[in-house]
């Protein structure tokens, strides 16, 4: 089983009041920002279950927005983010839903902007830890703890070998998913180090690779 570290247990230093509902929300926002990786025009936050029921009192709504704006979990502006000038960069609204097939603390970001529409689904899994579970229709698993390469490609033999051969640093985990055999597939690769633009360019030029995104890990 995956082990947490001592620093995980005695951190983060954060704006209260809830590690799952406030810090987790901010970190989900920060991940969504890193994943979208472009100028945002508008966003809809859809909060599920416990996020929906208790989000207001925990500042979950403020946290999601603050994260998407790039504010760190201990930023003192989060408390008054709705009245802050930095919150005027894009339009935002909130939806609330109950769906017991979803995690108790789940959220969907529907983001429109320079990279078109992207729907990012995540969960706050406890103690400020998070997981991004879906980007558009692809299942992923991003925790923000690792620099992560996300590839969309055609599901043909040898793709994993071709991609991993180009990466000369240790791979912490690798997850693949596909629509159907021979159709579009996704690969998320968590790295112990970082890759440079040369590697990214190489990956983009591999035959049958449609899209490459490099998602930086969150500052802890």
């Amino acid at each position, binding site marked *: *089983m995956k*082990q947490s570290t001592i620093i995980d247990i005695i951190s*983060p*230093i954060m704006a209260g*009041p809830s590690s799952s509902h406030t810090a987790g929300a901010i970190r989900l926002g920060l991940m969504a920002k890193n994943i979208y990786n472009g100028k945002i025009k508008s966003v809809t936050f859809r909060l599920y279950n416990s996020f929906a*029921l208790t989000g207001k*009192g*925990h500042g979950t709504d403020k946290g999601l927005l603050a994260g998407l704006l790039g504010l760190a979990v201990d930023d003192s502006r989060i408390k008054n983010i709705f009245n802050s000038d930095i919150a005027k960069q894009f339009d935002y609204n909130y939806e609330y839903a109950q769906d017991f097939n979803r995690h*108790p603390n789940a959220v969907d970001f529907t983001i429109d902007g320079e990279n078109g529409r992207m729907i990012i689904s995540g969960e706050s899994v406890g*103690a400020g830890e998070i997981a991004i579970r879906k980007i558009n229709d692809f299942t992923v698993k991003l925790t923000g703890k690792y620099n992560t390469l996300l590839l969309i490609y055609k599901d043909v033999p040898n793709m994993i070998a071709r991609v991993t051969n180009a990466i000369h640093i240790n791979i912490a985990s690798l997850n693949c998913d596909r629509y159907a055999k021979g159709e579009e597939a996704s690969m998320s690769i968590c790295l112990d180090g970082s890759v440079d633009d040369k590697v990214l360019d190489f990956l983009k030029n591999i035959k049958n690779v449609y899209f490459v995104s490099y998602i930086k890990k969150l500052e802890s």
Partner: protein
Amino acid sequence: MEKTISTFEELKNICNGITVYEAAQLREAELSEISVAEFRSKVKKSLDAMKEAIKNGLKSHEMSISGMCGDDCERLQKRFLRHHALLGRLFEKITTYALATIEENLRMGKIVACPTAGSCAIVPSVLVGVSEELKISEEDQINALITAGEVGRIISNKVALAGAVAGCQAECGVASAMSAAALTQMLGGSVDEILNAMALAMKNLLGLTCDPVCGLVEIPCVKRNPFLAIHAVTASELALAGIKSKIPPDEVIDALEQTGKLMSPLLKESSQGGLAKTKTALELEKEFLQ
């Protein structure tokens, strides 16, 4: 150095002649590919933030977003100005520091989630309160916080430290167990005594539910923090006397895990039972939602 230490038995075995924080800092530094000094400076950052939260909390009586909590630390400080606590100055410090920190948390102030935000006041109030009273050096405070972190880390390998998964026993309960270990380290306890303090504190909090009123980290979380900080002191005193938990540390954690699984979802941060469904809680809910 063994890299994966998942149980207290394994921890005890590698602590051959060294204590918990020494074994822990060597492993953590190696795993994160940093020096022990760099690791300790990260721990110091958390320690400093804990002290800052106490300082800010002692000065404020701003209420939370809901308006339900926020002015109890002030009340307690006033009381201790007039009447000294029966259990002495250390008791006063631990309880006021705990209220200061947890109230700072609910007004969206800056705190250290240790291990979670709802339980953020237990470790700091014990650690800082005792350090001030007994004039414990900063290095020894860092040693104690590493000890607390190591204990929490091992528990978290088995049980997710989240009220929604295992109830408050896994949040404030674990924070109290971490504090008992930290305090025992500060008082010069052996590895056995540290682990027994942890087990004794944990054992006496099994079954603690998470039933927050209006679903907020306020009622009963605010007052639970000073209560369980004092609970940690009891555990540490007993352990330092050589009193052992008859159920070994790892088995106590097994019981914690099983209790968490058996606990009704109505009592795990869903606010569907317990205190959250009392008549007064429902009235507060109505008031708050307006």
